[in-house]
Structure formats: structure tokens, C-alpha cells
């Protein structure tokens, strides 16, 4: 059974990789939703600027517009790497 198990675990990886990738991309796309059309571009440019100064992951910048009564608040979250 040993070699069969080996193939099985190889295969199991493919669906779980798909799931992980989907969770990341769907979360990212949802966060940009409902806001102004320029949000994704703004998010990318902020990321580029930050990456000029320090190395962060491509999904380090989270951006969204929150409505607070009459005000709209642009919320930008940047995750810096642990060794900072």
C-alpha cells in the first residue's frame, strides 16, 4: 500500500493547493469590491512604494473604503515582515 499512499498524498495536494489559492485571491478581490474603481490601482501603487523601502509580500497591502455615517474612510493596512 505504501506506494499507493504516496500517489494519493501527491494528488491530495492538487485540490488543496487550489483551495488555498482561491481563498487568497477571493479575499483580495472582495476587499476591493464596492469601492471606487481606482482602488486596485491605488493598492498596487502603494505596494510598489512600500516595496521600494522594504521587502513585503505581494498581498501585504489591504485597502478598503468604509462608510462611517456621512464620511467615507479609506482604510489601508500594511503587513510588515516579522523581522522588522
Amino acid at each position, binding site marked *: 500500500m505504501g506506494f*499507493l499512499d504516496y*500517489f*494519493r498524498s501527491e*494528488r*491530495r*495536494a*492538487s*485540490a*488543496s493547493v*487550489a*483551495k488555498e*489559492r*482561491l*481563498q487568497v*485571491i*477571493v479575499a483580495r*478581490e*472582495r476587499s476591493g*469590491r*464596492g469601492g471606487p474603481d481606482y482602488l486596485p490601482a491605488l493598492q498596487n501603487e502603494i505596494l510598489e512604494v512600500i516595496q521600494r523601502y522594504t521587502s513585503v509580500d505581494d498581498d501585504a497591502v489591504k485597502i478598503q473604503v468604509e462608510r462611517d455615517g456621512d464620511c467615507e474612510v479609506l482604510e489601508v493596512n500594511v503587513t510588515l515582515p516579522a523581522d522588522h
Partner: protein
Amino acid sequence: MARVVVVTSGKGGVGKTTTSAAFGAGLARAGHRTVVVDFDVGLRNLDLIMGCERRVVYDFVNVIHGEANLNQALIRDKRVENLAILPASQTRDKDALTQEGVEKVLEGLAEDFDYIVCDSPAGIERGAHLAMYYADDALVVTNPEVSSVRDSDRVLGLLSSKTRRAERGEDPVKEHLIVTRYSPSRVGKGEMLSVEDVCEILSINLLGVIPESTAVLNASNAGMPVILDEKSDAGQAYSDTVARFLGEERDHRFLTDKKGLFSKLFGG
């Protein structure tokens, strides 16, 4: 009040038309006056899947333009009572459907039908937008595969922002997930996203799971909604789906591989 049900997906070729035909036939079979409307302008196909392609005289766009009235354009199904279809136009003019035109046609249909099932074209352009705009319910058809799931999520975003219900601040469009072309044996091998995975990612209510099935091709060859093939797995899965939509509780019957022993022994 008629309910407008859009069958949508974003991604093409995932089973919207198959589902529209089956779902419409299922609602009609349960006694509800049902019309299935083909929104795929330029790529009319619902007529073929429902086996009435030779009876098409007028279409959706003719009605919008006032060249025919609804009764002239509607085709009554010969097998199922209470079932009709409104075929799409084969025009190449992508702007043939207008918002006012669609609204007028749906209002006309609402007088004679309990359910208006709108078969959306693929994509998120005009046709898809108009198909979902007036919806009360949405059947989001998804294959267990990365691009289909991602597109479905995109469509969920549109349903919650670009529909009449959203714009008017009414109760949101009721979203239902239908996973199609599901292959339990491949899920078992870890090659395919499971229904649980898809539900978790999209976080919407699961209405039905339709297995990958040869019955679907057979039914489309014959021009018969697959739900009428009552012996087939896909037909039964669609029957369960319609029953759940109408409020019945039904177990999901096609989530596991029936082949059993062989596949258990050989990792199937």
C-alpha cells in the same frame, strides 16, 4: 407575484443552459407556470437544449422592438404542461437588449407566469448584467475548478451591487449555489475541489450538486431537459435541487462515488 430567477456564472460553459432547462422544466412539472428566457443574444441555444428549435418564429428582441407580441414569441413545451420558452435573438447587435425593453418583457411575462428563469450568457457584459438585473433569486452555477469558482465570486459581488434590488436598497437577491459537473471519485483522489471547499470559499447556501454525467449529453442530443430523464443521476440531482428550492428537505445523493469497492481498493 412572479419570481425572477437568474441562472448565472461568469465563466462560460459551466452548465447554465443545461441548468436553466432542467430547472425550468422541474418548476413546471411541480405545477408552477414557468417560462425560461434565453438572454444569450447572438448565441441562441436554449431552444436546442429544450428541443423546440424548429418552432422558433419570433424572439426576445422582436418583442422588445414591437415586431411581435409575447404570445407570438413564446413557445409552449410539448412534453411539460405550464412550461414555455422565450428564445434569444440571433442578431449580432450586442445592444439589441435594452434595459427598458427587458423590463417591459419581464413585466409582460409576470402576468402569465409564476417563475421567470433567465438563462444568462457568460461573462459580465451587458447581456449578463441585464439577465441578473431584475432577479429575485440567483442560481450561481459553478464547476469545482479554480477559474469557475473565482468567476462565481465575482458574480456574487455583482448580484449584491448591480441589481435592481441592490440599487433600491431592497432585500438582496437570494443566492443559491449549484455545483455542476461534480466528480466524487476525483474529489476522493484530491484532484478536484470538494463541495465543502467551494461552499467555504463562496460562503453561500448550497442548493444542489449535479454530478458529471453522460446523461447530460444524451439529453441535449435529444433536445430534452435532463431532469425529464428520471432514471439518470443528473436528472435526479436536478429534481432534488428544484424540490429544495421549493422548500423541501432532500439529502444530497450524489456526493459519494457509487462504484464502491473497486475504487476503495484502488484509491478511486
